[in-house]
């Protein structure tokens, strides 16, 4: 065997190196208040992950190193520059999550568990890396499970909290159910194709084979659970509400985005002959997802639960890029993911820091938030406007490119329905803005200062929300790499 092919997996290997270093450092730098150890525990993962991102991007994205497709292990691992771009986007999201996690992990009950949080989070990230670069269904399945099994431990991170335990139970049971469906779909594909390599499968899939259609339906429902598309979304609200806020933000952006990208890649690579069928299937799923989630979001009063329904609806828009499987759709999807990531993490960072300081999570608790915390409410407003898609902010441009891609792919009705739903979503996002600025409260959340890590994270989010739309270089950057899968 030629061991040099491991060198093609630079992204994964560098992340594994980060995990190993953190694992060893966690033994030495264990938090201990008396001796003052554990001081490096927050900066260390951030610095390492930042270094890994820079390393990955310079090696994988810089044009001089750019090779269209790299393969290793006989095609089991496939890699294109676009995949590095997506991984870098996921890395930025994880960095912001680390920034906002600091305040929560410094609490007395969590101090002892700090190291585990970073290790588990990075393990799920590694699973997503493998899932994204998979060229074979074994690789794909292992990546998927590596992304969802440590996630359960993260959801149940606050062990003594009943809601967290309940959320973890709901998450693991639905995740297992969905992966069983997915596995059955893959087994049917194996039975009809005789191979599990993505490249060889496309030639052996035909539109007249009903077993393969069943496999497609099982496959989409399996991934639909991970992206939380509507018939499969029932776990989302409960898990998001019960999980620690930091983990919720990670779930709502990173794992969702990775799964959506993987859905795109597998549908285009493997199920290319069945394009008519999956277009039809996704057409109805997207309409259901956006509409149902919007209707449910209006009637929520817990802000985390509200963000869960908002995230389901955003997932519908994200999957809109898959329709037709065009290169423009891919660009629109990754751009949408990036913009959604900064905006959503910004909102979650504020929810998190508010929860840490006051323990309040209801929307009505945010009444009069502007009087006590004007800066935080300003950033929250920016992020909510971006999520709703109001013009000067990035969310407008990402929605615009998404609709453009859907229109070019030939689905004007779908784009119209999504557009109508954007207006509905504007209503409920503005409800929070109204609560913060206009409503008065007898007991508003007291004025507090967020810690410096959260401030850095919020600054990144605010910059992203404002400039990712106005600077066309961001979109062009994604567009430059979307030429091939």
């Amino acid at each position: 065997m030629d061991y040099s092919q491991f060198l093609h997996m630079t992204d994964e290997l560098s992340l594994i190196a980060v995990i190993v270093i953190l694992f060893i450092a966690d033994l030495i730098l264990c938090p201990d208040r008396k001796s003052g150890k554990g001081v490096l525990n927050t900066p260390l993962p951030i610095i390492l992950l930042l270094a890994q991102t820079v390393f990955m991007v310079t090696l994988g994205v810089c044009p001089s190193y750019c090779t269209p497709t790299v393969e290793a292990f006989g095609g089991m691992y496939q890699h294109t520059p676009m995949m590095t771009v997506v991984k870098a986007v996921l890395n930025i999201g994880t960095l912001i999550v680390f920034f906002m996690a600091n305040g929560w992990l410094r609490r007395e009950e969590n101090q002892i568990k700090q190291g585990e949080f970073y290790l588990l989070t990075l393990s799920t990230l590694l699973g997503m890396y493998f899932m994204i670069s998979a060229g074979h269904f074994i690789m794909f399945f292992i990546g998927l499970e590596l992304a969802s099994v440590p996630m359960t431990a993260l959801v149940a991170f606050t062990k003594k909290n009943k809601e967290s335990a309940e959320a973890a139970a709901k998450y693991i049971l639905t995740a297992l159910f969905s992966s069983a469906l997915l596995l059955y779909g893959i087994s049917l594909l194996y039975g009809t194709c005789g191979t599990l390599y993505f490249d060889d499968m496309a030639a052996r899939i035909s539109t007249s084979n009903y077993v393969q259609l069943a496999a497609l339906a099982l496959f989409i429902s399996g991934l639909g659970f991970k992206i939380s598309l509507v018939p499969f979304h029932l776990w989302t609200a409960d898990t998001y509400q019960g999980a620690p806020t930091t983990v919720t933000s990670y779930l709502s952006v990173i794992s969702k985005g990775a799964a959506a990208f993987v859905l795109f890649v597998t549908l285009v690579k493997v199920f290319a002959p069945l394009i008519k069928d999956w277009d039809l299937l996704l057409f109805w799923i997207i309409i259901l997802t956006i509409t149902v989630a919007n209707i449910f979001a209006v009637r929520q009063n817990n802000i985390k639960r509200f963000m869960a329904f908002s995230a389901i609806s955003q997932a519908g828009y994200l999957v809109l890029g898959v329709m037709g499987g065009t290169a423009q759709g891919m660009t629109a999807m990754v751009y949408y993911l990036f913009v959604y990531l900064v905006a959503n993490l910004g909102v979650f960072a504020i929810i998190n820091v508010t929860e840490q300081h006051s323990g309040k999570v209801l929307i009505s608790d945010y009444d009069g938030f502007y009087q006590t915390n004007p800066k935080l409410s300003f950033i929250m407003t920016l992020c909510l406007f971006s999520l709703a898609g109001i013009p000067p902010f990035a969310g407008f441009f990402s929605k615009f490119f998404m609709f453009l891609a859907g229109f070019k792919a030939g689905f004007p009705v779908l784009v119209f329905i999504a557009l109508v739903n954007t207006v509905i979503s504007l209503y409920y996002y503005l409800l929070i803005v109204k609560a913060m600025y206009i409503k008065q409260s007898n007991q508003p959340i007291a004025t507090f200062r967020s810690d410096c890590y959260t401030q850095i994270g919020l600054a990144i989010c605010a910059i992203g929300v404002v400039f990712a739309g106005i600077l066309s270089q961001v979109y062009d950057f994604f567009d430059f790499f979307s030429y091939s899968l």
Partner: protein
Amino acid sequence: MITIHYFLILSVLMLFIGIYGFLTRRNTLAILISIELMLNAADLNFAAFNRLLFPEGQEGYFFSLFSIAISAAETAIAIAVMINIYRNIKNNFVEHLDKMKW
């Protein structure tokens, strides 16, 4: 002669018994057992397809091996979660996991 049909009928039966169990059982452990049934249905498919349809390769066997290992890991963490629930609410029936609704 045992043909592929026997295996397929068995695995489809196992899959649907698993789905039925997942939807109707009230004990989280019973739900977990139902899910294991579904996973095993897929493993059976892989092994049978490999043995009877594509005997020249090993892909199906390897896939079922990997999936058994992964489902063991999943079961371990699922049971850990259930023990945690039991510690918190002294019960592991799904009726009592109703703190968060709608």
